[in-house]
């Protein structure tokens, strides 16, 4: 039985079709969930896609986090269900305080759209099918990706293995002045919760699964979830 992913669509989401396409390309079952839906019992895993939910008004994700579906997402997450937030989805997860910290406007004030190298860190994240130290290339596409949190939160996340992905140089090293094109604290590109079941990241793995754009590094971001679900069902 293949894993059934639910992709939550908010007014202003615009990457939900990419996510569903990528999941179906990889052989998984995927369906859309409207932000007003509250019954998520049909799904094994949830994805909050990128976009500009509610116009990014006030703050990115600030309004979407109060959508009826988000209460169901919270309950799903509390039960250990896999949740991935990509770009605006990551912003929504931080606003909902399902993940620590916040995402500020890019330090250089520019919208950034480019494919960047990312280093996989040693973390408790359960949904990444890649070894620590691996370097992948994934597109980023955002105006508010400058991750911040207070020093105590950062230290705690480091100790608990919640930092999943860092921006890096092509060889996997980190530049002394920082490798994050958006100015993110400690080059952070993706984090997870303490149990490793809620994962948020600014890059868009769904855009690089089928090789059409020349890369397939994104597949590993969905494969671990699917395998875990298939193991649980079996």
């Amino acid at each position, binding site marked *: 039985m293949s894993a059934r992913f639910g992709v939550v669509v908010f007014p202003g989401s615009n990457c939900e079709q990419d996510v569903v396409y990528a999941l179906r390309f990889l052989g998984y079952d995927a369906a859309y969930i409207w932000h007003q839906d509250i019954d998520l019992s049909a799904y094994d895993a949830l994805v909050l896609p990128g976009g500009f939910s509610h116009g990014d008004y006030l703050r990115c994700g600030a309004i979407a986090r109060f959508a009826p579906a988000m209460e169901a997402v919270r309950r799903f997450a509390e039960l250990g269900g896999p949740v991935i937030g990509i770009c605006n989805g990551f912003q929504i997860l931080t606003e909902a305080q399902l993940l620590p910290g916040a995402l*500020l406007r890019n330090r250089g004030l520019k919208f950034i759209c480019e494919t960047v190298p990312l280093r996989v860190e040693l973390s408790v994240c359960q949904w990444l099918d890649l070894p620590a130290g691996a370097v992948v290339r994934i597109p980023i596409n955002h105006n508010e990706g400058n991750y*911040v949190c207070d020093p105590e939160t950062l230290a705690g996340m480091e100790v608990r293995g919640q930092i999943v992905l860092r921006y890096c140089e092509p060889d996997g090293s980190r530049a002394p002045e920082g490798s994050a094109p958006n100015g993110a604290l400690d080059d952070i590109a993706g984090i997870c919760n303490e149990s490793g079941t809620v994962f948020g990241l600014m890059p868009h793995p769904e855009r690089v699964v089928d090789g059409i754009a020349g890369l397939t590094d994104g597949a590993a971001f969905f494969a671990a979830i699917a395998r875990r679900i298939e193991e649980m069902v079996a």
Partner: protein
Amino acid sequence: MMRYEVYVTGKPGIFDPAGKTTAGALSNLGYAGVAQVRIGKFIQLSCDDSVSLEQLTEMCEKLLANPIIEDYRIEEVLEGAEG
């Protein structure tokens, strides 16, 4: 009707590139004395009398500001204060 004004600003230490850029522009215009510029948000609310200050505080904590990165200040606009 009651009128309230909410000011939302980045917490101290949260880098504000727009403020920094604007400070640079003021300096370029010859205003050498401007030490710092911080740019935030200004939100006006018109409320009926049932809305309490406690509720406004709750609105700020829940939605209007993100307490992780922002501070906020609520000001009541007195009757007749506007022209």
